[in-house]
């Protein structure tokens, strides 16, 4: 019983920690091939739902599964292992589709 309660509490904590959408400022994004590699790497993470790369905004956005998150350390490692420099990571309440629409409208 104690174990069950602990599991539920842990799940609730994990849900509470979920960001849903993570935005990363990345340096070195200059071509479609860069973006292709980053997208491929991030999609391998089981918590990833979708990935958006904007060369114009030097931005990489990841949406995560409900109740799941990807740590800053894992995100930084994924981008660094892809050959790029992460300059900032922020969690946002906006959905990836909203960000995509805003970027498109801004162009």
């Amino acid at each position, binding site marked *: 019983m104690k174990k069950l309660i602990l599991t539920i509490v842990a799940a609730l904590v994990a849900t509470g920690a979920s960001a849903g959408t993570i935005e990363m400022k990345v*340096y*070195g*994004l*200059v*071509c*479609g*091939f*860069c*973006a*292709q*590699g*980053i*997208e*491929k*790497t991030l999609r391998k993470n089981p918590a990833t739902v979708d990935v958006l*790369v*904007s*060369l*114009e905004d*030097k931005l990489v956005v990841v949406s995560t599964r409900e109740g799941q998150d990807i740590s800053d350390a894992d995100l930084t490692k994924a981008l660094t*292992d*892809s*050959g*790029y*420099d992460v300059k900032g990571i922020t969690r946002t309440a906006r959905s990836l589709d909203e960000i995509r629409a805003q970027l498109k409208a801004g162009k």
Partner: protein
Amino acid sequence: MNLVRRSLAGVALVGASLAATGKPIAFSDGTTVMAEYGAGTMKEAQVFYAPKYFYSVGLGYLELESDIDGRRREITYARANYLAKRWNMESAQANVFAWGGAGQAYSSETNDHAFAWNAGAQVDYETRRIYASLKTDFHGSSDFDHRIDTLQLGIAPYEHDFDTLATWFVVQGRQYTGGIHEGGEWALLLRLFKRGAWIEAGVTDDGKLQAMAMVNF
């Protein structure tokens, strides 16, 4: 008119075969298939796999035919590419690559096969509007040695994004050693790429087709 016809034929040819990036390593866990047709003087095909973003390994085939005396060389090789240094800037990237390998070469001068080795390097700088690269590629054997030096300067009329078509106008200067081509060779190229596919075609100052294609996946 003849130039235009040749150029269009080149685009059609490359488009049909669709196989090249300017970099020997695309991305981590990525496979690159490239093919280049160099004005009747050089034909090359390469397949590389990159376990990490900073190195790749693969196979290549290079065929050279001298437009001076018709001598031919066919080189089949294995090669490793290494990203020695990368600078990631806010809106630009610069790289230094080096590579080396070994294989077998046929030379028409001796009508025989011999062990061959190769080595090269590339430095490049690019933004979404300008591109510059300098590459040197050496192949040697007991029968011959030659080097191909290539300079490319590109300009994009607009800034592309991940899901839009990139268009580049590129000026290429190339120098062959080892009796392959007399003097320097210049070419004007149109480069198009989107996501993992890249095609490039144009004409040299001799009115010959210069083309390249690549896919990354």
